[in-house]
């Protein structure tokens, strides 16, 4: 790798001289050597092995998992374990619940964050700087500091085991506001907002006809990130959805793990079922999600 020192010069003399400020390849001008590919292969195996092994364990039975060496190839018990885990952990209902929670939460966060992010990015108002600092400050507060009063509220309203108890506190995301602000600062030219203003458009019309169309890619990415976060959220749902009967996927999985004589292959089948939907989403939209995370990160 040390011999490649001259390469950047040779390359910049080439046709790629004119670069965008953040084109995908800026900085990555050197071809990777074999060492890089070996390291990447190791990380790939490390990232994927626990997931693949989950599927392997889910395809065996509990006895086989209590033997050495551990299994490294699929058995024949997958369908059986999946169906038992599905009914034992009430996963059908859990999927429905989690989809509702994550959908409402992500949708609301995206709408509120886009509008608030637009105001912070493009509108001038008294106290803007201070309020933005407050938004960033709220990202620093751990959720543990709010769960006790929230739990009291839920108990008082008799909302234990009801989805609104999970949904309501999840509707607000400081990260979302920050993310949309960062995107709109650079994606939405001031002139367009001003032109719409001069034409007499009200602020809501500007949001509807200018901001939403411009922000759509970022809204999609934020929606996916927030959906993942709500789908995987554990602490709060675990506290308020205590009684069995109305769990989210994560609560159902925790319940599966706490059986008195835990059947490991069933637990793995549950873990597999609970993870598959998001893995599917990542397989389909991975490129967009990666792009979104990187985009949100640059100004971080």
């Amino acid at each position, binding site marked *: 790798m040390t011999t490649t020192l001259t390469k950047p010069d040779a390359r910049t003399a080439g046709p790629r001289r004119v670069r965008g400020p953040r084109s995908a390849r800026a900085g990555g001008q050197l071809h990777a050597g074999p060492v890089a590919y070996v390291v990447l292969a190791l990380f790939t195996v490390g990232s994927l092995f626990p997931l693949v092994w989950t599927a392997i364990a889910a395809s065996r039975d509990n006895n086989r998992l209590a033997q050495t060496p551990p299994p490294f190839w699929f058995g024949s018990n997958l369908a059986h374990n999946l169906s038992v885990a599905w009914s034992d952990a009430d996963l059908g209902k859990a999927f429905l619940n989690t989809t509702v929670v994550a959908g409402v939460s992500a949708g609301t966060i995206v709408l509120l964050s886009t509008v608030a992010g637009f105001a912070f990015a493009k509108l001038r108002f008294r106290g803007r700087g201070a309020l933005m600092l407050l938004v960033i400050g709220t990202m620093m507060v751990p959720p543990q500091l709010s769960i006790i009063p929230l739990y009291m509220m839920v108990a008082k309203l008799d909302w234990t085991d009801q989805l609104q108890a999970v949904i309501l506190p999840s509707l*607000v995301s400081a990260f979302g506001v920050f993310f949309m602000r960062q995107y709109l600062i650079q994606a939405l030219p001031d002139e367009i907002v001003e032109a719409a203003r001069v034409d007499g458009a009200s602020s809501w019309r500007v949001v509807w006809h200018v901001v939403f169309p411009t922000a759509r890619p970022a809204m999609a990415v934020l929606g996916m990130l927030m959906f993942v976060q709500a789908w995987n959220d554990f602490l709060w749902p675990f506290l308020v959805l205590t009684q069995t009967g109305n769990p989210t996927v994560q609560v159902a999985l925790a319940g599966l793990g706490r059986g008195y004589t835990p059947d490991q292959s069933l637990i793995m089948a549950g873990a597999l079922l609970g993870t598959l939907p998001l893995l599917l989403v990542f397989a389909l939209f991975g490129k967009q999600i990666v792009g979104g995370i990187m985009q949100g990160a640059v100004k971080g």
Partner: protein
Amino acid sequence: MATRHDTAAPPAKEGGAAPARPAGAASDSAALRRRARQSRRWRRDVRLSPYAFVSPFFLLFLAFGLFPLIYTAWASLHTVELTAPTDMHWAGLRNYTRLLDDDFFWNAARNTLTIGIISTVPQLLMAMGLAHILNYRLRASTFYRVVMLAPYATSIAAASLVFALLFGRDYGVINWVLHLVGGGRIDWQGDTWPSQIAVSSIIIWRWTGYNALIYLAAMQAVPQELYESAALDGASRWRQFLHVTLPQLRPTILFTTVVSTIGASQVFGEPLLFDANKGASGGAEHQFQTLGLYLYEQGWVNQHLGRASAIAWMMFLILIVIGIVNHVISRRLRAS
């Protein structure tokens, strides 16, 4: 961000856009009045709509963030039972003084610190290395990035259950591999350091790829000219990394450190589910009980919500202290 006296600018434009007709007909004056009304409404819209746009966020934050934060402090000064959360008895600072004398609290604080260090430091170092490699021109680069993100898509619950099995003492894959290479059998659940390493590995596994993407994004934003001039000066790749990449990434490194520190201070699900039978105690000897888990044990197992509130505020205070130390150190570094 500094501009404030801005409401003055748009109305001027509006005045220009609505030239008054000199004719004195009644219909014209009605139109003028309408114009004036519209203009007023327009001005009010410009002045107030930003607040309307940010208010839903702040209202929700008030209800579900700030109010609970303060109310937790209030509750921490009371004796409150989980079974009767509205029945509060004033206790002064007793919850706090009890905590300071509580071995389990200090044990949990120590565990949170060690698990925080074992999980954050290797995670960010590996993420940096990984980002550096991903920043080369690679075949199938998108594939690697998506693969690195697969653990991030896996929930804490699922990951913890799987890792508990992988780290099994008798039949776990990891001990089997260790046995193959001649190592002894490690009790990953029962012993202090192994269990903390195992719990940390769940966190490392889930977050390394995500942080690598954040570093990668920052690396790609480094101006190419800096590398070119460094190369002209004869700097090796390693020196370029040290003297160009790292300084340019400093804000990002700070950001990820802060986020990871906050995350590490709240670790809850991983130790809870890593030994599911022990539950909230974090192992038979509390050997991997974190503050988040201890809070849960006090509040929901022992049903002392007042004490749990005190733990929550202690966590917050510790975070603030760490934040201040972090700030001082990074300022020192910048100065030197």
